[in-house]
């Protein structure tokens, strides 16, 4: 990550252990996230990816270590109010994120909370929905949307708050191939710094620039992954074999 841009998120030596569990899920984790960074994280289940996002957003407090966002140390609940305006977190399950009866109300919820007037909130929501190709969705009932539509509307509820960083938690879960490529297209048209958690190599490669793994509660920053595909002929046929 050889950028000279300003540091957006600085995590230093953060540890977190869930109550009642013996092993910390994050152990002395450090990360420097700069402007224009497009970072991908690949990690097995239970490796603390979601926990990392929740720590950045202030939903949980680290046992140790410090988090700085936009050059300011964040500790108290009040510190996180500006953070949440600037960072948009897309949840794994869109049903958790869409709670209003109609799409328009849900997308306008964030802007209204930011103190925008009703007209401004509607205007910005219309624009966001149009950007995502969801022009006719305003009066649709949120729970009657399909899985893919829900994910895109959930993204709209975040983008309408005009964040400068996106945190995406397994954004492709349950999406069909078409919606997936639509999501890739949308993300590549968004000039936003991002951290993307996914287990889908192809997806993460097309929306991020650097990919790292997580292991033992830390991010392996010294080993950047380079995903490439290669074709080769097998003498082994269909027999199980190892690539050395």
């Amino acid at each position, binding site marked *: 990550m050889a950028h000279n841009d300003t540091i957006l998120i600085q995590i230093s030596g953060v540890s977190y252990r869930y109550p009642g569990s013996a092993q910390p899920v994050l152990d002395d984790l450090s990360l420097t996230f700069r402007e224009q960074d497009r970072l991908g994280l690949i990690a097995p289940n239970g490796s603390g990816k979601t926990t990392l996002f929740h720590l950045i957003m202030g939903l949980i407090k680290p046992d140790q270590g410090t988090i700085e966002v936009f050059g300011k140390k964040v500790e108290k609940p009040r510190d996180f109010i500006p953070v949440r305006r600037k960072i948009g977190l897309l949840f794994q399950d869109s049903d958790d994120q869409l709670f209003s009866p109609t799409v328009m109300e849900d997308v306008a919820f964030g802007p209204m909370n930011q103190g925008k007037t009703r007209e401004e909130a*509607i205007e910005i929501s219309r624009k966001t929905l149009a950007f995502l190709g969801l022009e006719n969705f305003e009066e649709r009932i949120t729970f009657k949307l399909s899985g893919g539509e829900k994910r895109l509307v959930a993204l709209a509820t*975040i983008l309408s708050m005009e964040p400068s960083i996106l945190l995406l938690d397994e954004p492709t879960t349950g999406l069909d191939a078409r919606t997936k490529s639509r999501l890739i297209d949308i993300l590549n048209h968004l000039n936003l710094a991002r951290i993307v958690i996914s287990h889908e190599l192809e997806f993460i490669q097309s929306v991020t620039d650097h990919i790292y793994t997580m292991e033992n509660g830390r991010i392996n920053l010294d080993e950047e992954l380079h995903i490439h595909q290669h074709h080769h002929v097998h003498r082994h046929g269909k027999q199980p074999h190892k690539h050395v």
Partner: protein
Amino acid sequence: MIEEPFASGNSIIHRIDPRFRVAVAILVSMEAALLKDFRAMAFALAGSLALVFLARLDLFHVLKRLFSLVRFLVFVWLLIPLTYEGQAVYLFGPLAWSREGFLLCAQISLKSLAILLFFMALVSTMGLSTLGKSLKALFVPGKLVHLLLMTYRYIFVIGQEYDRLETAIKIRGFSPTTTLHSYKTYAYLVAMLFVKASIRAERVHQAMILRGFRGRFYSLDTFTPSYRNWIFFIAMMGLFIGTLFLERGSVWPITIRF
């Protein structure tokens, strides 16, 4: 799971301000519930039928909904005349059907039909989110309104979770019987549903906090004033007062005697 067959439509009733409809529906239903005079009841029922007609509701769905009330009324007609004291009109061994009991049944039937039809024509002709907003506009506490809307939003999600759990126990060979094992399995299922619902509630709350929620909901709806609302209101007041007149022989709701 919850159908809203009447919510979308373009009848005269659909175009009336929802707040007016909710307020009027509450008023005339309460009046209908307190009636004692059969002429007044018949008048209210006729009024409710006229409204259903004006709302141009799909007859099939109207009958379908009425059917669930009729099923209940059948039991009322079977049981109340047997247990109500009064002049016997029919005797069968130790059983006696009373005249007063039958009259009470007729009252219950007329009133409940009228109230159901009022609500079908006036309230179920709007979506639930509109109903929520109307209730809020009519000074129902915000917390209650949001409880209603959130329940409506997540009952489907919880329903899906129930289906998933049920499939999970079915594919492992479970078929319900009257054994302790069955009851226990269902108890687990329900308990699991509560646990899942409460975990989900926490995640939804987190999502709301992240979007700047500070305990206040904002409504995007604006109700447009129209002369139609007042015409509707005056017509419904006519129904209200007409019913009252038939009931008491005077339009004063309270009789003052010296």
